[in-house]
């Protein structure tokens, strides 16, 4: 068996074990790479694993005249790498050992570098970089080999487990012998065990950022190497066998603490190889695969091993873990854009999940989906002078299609203009392009599903065939266009030179202004602002604002209107976010909030009337007067009273406001006391009642008429106002509200109408056409006071709406499905359940029960009277006038 035994006296420093099996093509190159090493003090043992080709012959020829090389020919094929490597080790005498496979090769100075590194660090073994020849990238370069690592331990850097190769390392022979560390014979994936054990047995390990080993990757090879035959089930079985041996070793070696690190590598590397190929497996393979992986997972880990993995792996592995093959196969189909057997994707609020087939209440923790998959294709794209049209197929995978609506929209990125698509009778999506301005109109699909809107930009790949069409009229050209990032657009360009120049200028201006947050930030604006501040304050100017300029409403509105009625000689200014969209009666000047003009009036008006806080916008000047009307009787704790003390910055902000206030309007003695304490406000409080509530006591018929007609409420219907508050801790409360109104809609029938009033932050999430006919979205109606007047009944929860509404003495139902949570999060000034002006319901069914039994609701009349009496004690319908008398003397 042995030939060419060298007659060396002293042991060499390094022994290299080369193993070869049918490597006739490459073995010479492997051996030459060793023979040409820059390092001399070494021996090479080549073990031929009973090759059936010329490998043995080539080895013998090569070693013939080289005394430091010897060849060993095994007498039967071992079927793996372990036996030849162990045999090789047994025939070596060096102080250090390295391994080389017969189809790979070393860099010319690999041995020199590795010996130097292990002598320098005195580590038990040292790893060097591996280069794969298909990519020339370094194996685990970023994770492990980017820097030199000296004398580390696997327990401090478990990422090392990802490099489970044995061939790119140099080992102290004493280390291998001390632990009797050899390659396990009779199995494949010997490296997993050998290297794994070595990591945990070694006291210290080092890594050098130098390439030492070329791993020859032959693509499209006829005969795949052992480790690449993933389609044979034995291959998977062998891998699991190796991992089980490694697990057993960890237990015996007292390293169960690190099992999870090992699991992590198994999941992210080993198992992934197989789940990636799952579609290629046949039925028999799949059956065995599910059985074995289920068994193995339950041996080695629990479901929390997946929780931090990327979404796809987390879901795949969890389904394997719970043994849900049906759902697993559906998920594999889902991520490959194939139809699933069941509709499995569902949403709770904004969060999406994949539904398993097996019951259980822990699933959602592991089966969350960040973004649902939406497939769509466009065909028959046509562009004419006045129209873009196409046919579209869109599908949100694995979701019940009845709950989906698909809409298409074009958006001009330069100007922000939008064009909505409409469906023609023949099923074409059409866009009218009659009134477009220059710019690129990008096309998006909007899929709305249970109140969630998913936007997908149309890319070239989703378009079946795209003709290069360009159409022109006398002034504009329109063309189908694909941009650098592969997005589809209709490009509209001016044709005349003068228009082109104008457009180039506008386009620049658009982007330039978009970059600035506000016009007030420009240097020129600063100059103007300083100038404005030097101009005298005008004692007959009054600046109004309500709800940060979002509305023309609340007490500022009623003070303004009362001043008009009283014929006061003032100049009135209203600050609004969108002045163009709000109608204001009388001579008031509307200014856009944050504009220079706004600033001008802000610093020159003697009077500010506002209901939230504008003191931070400009430093109040000495002779200015700030009337803070505030916007409701407090139920939830505010300011200094909050359950958790507000942060320093919050307090600072609050102080900026309270210091600026000259008058504060309070609706009742209860509120007066709270405001003073909660805001630490020492100034004058006008306990006049709320100017906004004057309307509720006067109830002018023309306002009722106007409100009814603008909301198109048919005569004779009972009107229910539904006004839930915003729960900022629960992003899904909106979905809950949607579900509730759907339920209500089904129950109340056609005799009643529900007016839905949502918080302004939510009002844009809903549009009328998604609502049933007996639900009217009144969220964008300017003044809620007017809605009170036209409704016969109120459903609300914790909102100050109830205090105002109680003045009408009309029934109130409090729908507080999360009362305990609200109280514990926010804290309230009194117990709602004790003082409530009506029944406190926990379910929407309970609410309906009261709706359908007016006599039951009527039994709360006493509570309502008491509530109204306490909180409405000063309201007499003249609050606005009282305020005016005090302030505008």
């Amino acid at each position, binding site marked *: 068996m042995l030939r060419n035994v060298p007659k060396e006296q002293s042991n060499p420093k390094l022994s290299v074990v080369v193993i070869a099996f049918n490597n006739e093509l490459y073995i010479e190159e492997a051996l030459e*790479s060793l023979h040409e090493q820059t390092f001399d003090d070494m021996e090479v043992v080549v073990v031929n694993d009973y090759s059936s080709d010329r490998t043995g012959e080539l080895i013998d020829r090569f070693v013939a005249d080289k005394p430091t090389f010897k060849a060993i020919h095994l007498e039967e094929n071992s079927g793996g790498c372990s036996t030849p490597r162990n045999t090789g080790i047994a025939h070596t005498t060096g102080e250090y050992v390295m391994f080389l496979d017969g189809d790979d090769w070393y860099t010319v100075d690999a041995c020199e570098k590795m010996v130097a590194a292990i002598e320098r660090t005195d580590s038990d073994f040292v790893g060097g970089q591996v280069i794969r020849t298909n990519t020339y990238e370094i194996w685990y370069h970023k994770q492990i080999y980017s820097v030199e690592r000296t004398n580390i331990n696997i327990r401090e850097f478990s990422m090392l487990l990802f490099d489970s190769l044995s061939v790119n390392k140099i080992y102290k022979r004493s280390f291998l012998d001390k632990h009797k560390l050899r390659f396990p014979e009779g199995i494949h994936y010997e490296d997993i065990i050998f290297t794994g054990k070595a990591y945990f047995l070694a006291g210290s390990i080092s890594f050098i950022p130098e390439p030492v080993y070329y791993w020859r990757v032959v693509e499209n090879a006829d005969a795949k190497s052992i480790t690449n035959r993933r389609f044979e089930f034995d291959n998977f079985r062998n891998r699991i066998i190796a991992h089980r041996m490694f697990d057993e070793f960890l237990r015996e070696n007292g390293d169960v603490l690190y099992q999870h690190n090992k699991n992590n590598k198994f999941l992210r590397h080993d198992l992934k190889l197989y789940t990636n190929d799952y579609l290629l497996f046949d039925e028999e393979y799949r059956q065995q695969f599910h059985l074995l992986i289920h068994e193995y997972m339950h041996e080695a880990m629990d479901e929390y091993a997946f929780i931090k993995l990327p979404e796809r792996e987390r879901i795949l592995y969890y389904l394997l873990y719970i043994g849900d093959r049906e759902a697993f196969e559906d998920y594999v189909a889902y991520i490959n854009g194939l139809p699933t057997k069941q509709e499995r994707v569902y949403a709770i609020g904004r969060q999406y999940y994949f539904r398993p087939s097996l019951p259980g209440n822990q699933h959602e923790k592991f089966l969350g989906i960040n973004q649902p998959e939406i497939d769509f294709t466009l065909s028959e794209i046509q562009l004419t002078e006045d129209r873009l049209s196409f046919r579209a197929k869109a599908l949100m995978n694995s979701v019940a299609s009845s709950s989906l609506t698909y809409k298409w929209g074009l958006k001009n990125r330069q100007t922000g203009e939008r064009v909505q698509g409409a469906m023609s009778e023949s099923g074409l999506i059409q866009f009218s392009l009659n009134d477009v301005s220059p710019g690129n109109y990008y096309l998006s699909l909007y899929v709305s599903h249970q109140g969630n809107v998913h936007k997908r930009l149309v890319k*070239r*790949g989703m378009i079946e065939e795209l003709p290069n*069409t*360009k159409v022109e009229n006398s002034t504009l050209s329109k063309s189908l266009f*694909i941009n*650098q*990032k*592969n997005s589809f657009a209709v490009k509209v360009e001016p044709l005349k030179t003068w228009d082109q120049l104008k457009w180039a200028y506008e386009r*620049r201006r658009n982007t330039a202004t978009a970059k600035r947050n506000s016009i007030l930030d420009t240097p020129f604006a600063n100059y103007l602002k300083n100038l404005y501040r030097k101009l005298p304050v005008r004692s007959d100017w009054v600046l109004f604002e309500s709800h940060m300029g979002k509305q023309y409403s609340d007490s500022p509105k009623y003070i303004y209107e009362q001043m008009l009625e009283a014929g006061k000689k003032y100049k009135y200014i209203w600050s609004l976010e969108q002045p163009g969209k709000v109608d204001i009666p009388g001579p008031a000047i509307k200014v856009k909030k944050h504009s220079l003009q706004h600033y001008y009036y802000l610093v020159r008006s003697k009077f500010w009337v506002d209901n939230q806080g504008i003191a931070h916008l400009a430093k109040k000047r000495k002779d200015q007067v700030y009337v803070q009307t505030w916007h409701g009787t407090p139920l939830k704790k505010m300011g200094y009273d909050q359950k958790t003390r507000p942060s320093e910055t919050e307090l600072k902000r609050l102080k900026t406001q309270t210091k600026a206030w000259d008058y504060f309007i309070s609706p009742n003695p209860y509120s007066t006391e709270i405001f003073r304490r909660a805001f630490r406000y020492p100034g004058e409080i006008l306990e006049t009642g709320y100017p906004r509530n004057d309307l509720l006591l006067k109830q002018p018929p023309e306002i009722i008429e106007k409100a009814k007609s603008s909301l198109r409420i048919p005569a004779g219907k009972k009107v229910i106002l539904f006004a839930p508050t915003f729960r900022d801790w629960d992003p899904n409360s909106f979905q809950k509200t949607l579900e509730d109104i759907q339920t209500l809609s089904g129950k109340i029938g056609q005799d009643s109408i529900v007016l839905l009033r949502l918080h302004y932050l939510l009002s844009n999430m809903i549009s009328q056409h998604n609502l049933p006919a007996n639900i009217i979205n009144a969220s964008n109606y300017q003044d809620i006071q007017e809605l009170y007047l036209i409704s016969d009944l109120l459903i609300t929860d914790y909102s100050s709406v109830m205090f105002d509404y109680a003045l009408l003495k009309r029934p109130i139902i409090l729908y507080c499905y999360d009362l305990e949570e609200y109280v514990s999060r926010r804290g309230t000034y009194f117990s709602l359940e004790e003082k409530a002006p009506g029944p406190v319901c926990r379910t929407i069914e309970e609410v309906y029960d009261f709706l359908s039994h007016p006599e039951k609701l009527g039994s709360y009349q006493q509570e309502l009277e008491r509530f109204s009496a306490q909180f409405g004690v000063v309201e007499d319908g003249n609050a606005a006038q009282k305020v005016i008398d005090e302030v505008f003397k």
Partner: protein
Amino acid sequence: MPKKNIVFVLNEYNGHGGAQRVASILADDFVQDGHHVAVLSINEQKDAPSYFSKNIPVTVLHKDDYRATLPKAISPNLKSLKLKTVASEINRRIQLSRRRKDVGRFFDQYGSEEVFVIVVQVWGMQWLQPLLYRPNIKVIGQSHESYIAAKNSLRYKRILKYYRQVSKFLLLTGKDADHFESRGFPNVGVMYNPSPFRAQVAADKLYRNKTIVSTGRLVDDKGFDVLIEAFARVASDLPEWQVHIYGEGPAKESLQNLISILGMDNRVILKGQTKDIQSALSSSSFFVLSSKAEGLPMSLIEAQSCGLPCISTDCAPGIREIVDDYKSGFITPVGDVPVLSRQIRRLASDPAMFSEFSEHAFITSMRFENETIKNQWYDLFDELGGQQHVKERA
């Protein structure tokens, strides 16, 4: 076959790179088959000869020798008072818009006849962009380098900008095509460069030449230093062998110095430029390409067309589409002198292997044969022209 209108668009029609070479070979073939071929060149070199035959009309866009600068934003430069930059940018824009009109007029000559426009380098697309919307004009864009080489260049950005809507975007290799397909290009295809000649020289005759040959401009990127070093390592094992390097370039002196230092003066010879590559190849044994980056190197294709085995660095995806490792030659890591030297020795010292590789190399070169490639172009024209036909019916 009905006569076709074919226009080649080049940066400089009388440059001396691979692109001009390939285009001129194709152009001659098309002319021979009776097609109407014209060349549209953005610029020209002063008084330089061209590969193109005299009977092919050439139109130069910038006859005044103006060279387009890179696009710049006007406003920030104006703000920082870089008036020269602003002036040159305004000039560029004016020039671009005028020359686009010239291009429009050039193609007006064809009326509504179908024209196949082969854009050899993407630079020209900025003048051709409006043509994309003319139904009778089929623009075929080419990129003659591997995506890895192009990746960090402005050329890559121009490809992303201009080639998405061309009728066909041709790459040199399948891997390059895959890359752009994965970037959302629906129009990619592969077209090999044609070999200008194909004539087998018997393997034993080649072997007896005992000459390793390499060609290319003498610049650092071609890695001739690696070849010289590698040969020097094994020169004593191959006493009768020589290396012949054909080409001129700025690195000539330093290469000559290297040869002297390694004592290879009689073994490695810088032969200078040759007019007759075919005979240079036929009088050698095998070809070594030691470049750092390439596309689909013509030199390897030409070498194989004479039956030369090739050893090449793995410097582009295209290499593996030409050379079969351990079958028609060897592929070695870029810049790895020891491996290259061993493979040179292996091939030079094994006549049986040499002869096997030589046979295989010649068979492989069939893929690049003039006739084969030309017919692929005709198939492509039919495919693109056919599309329009179908649409007219629909």
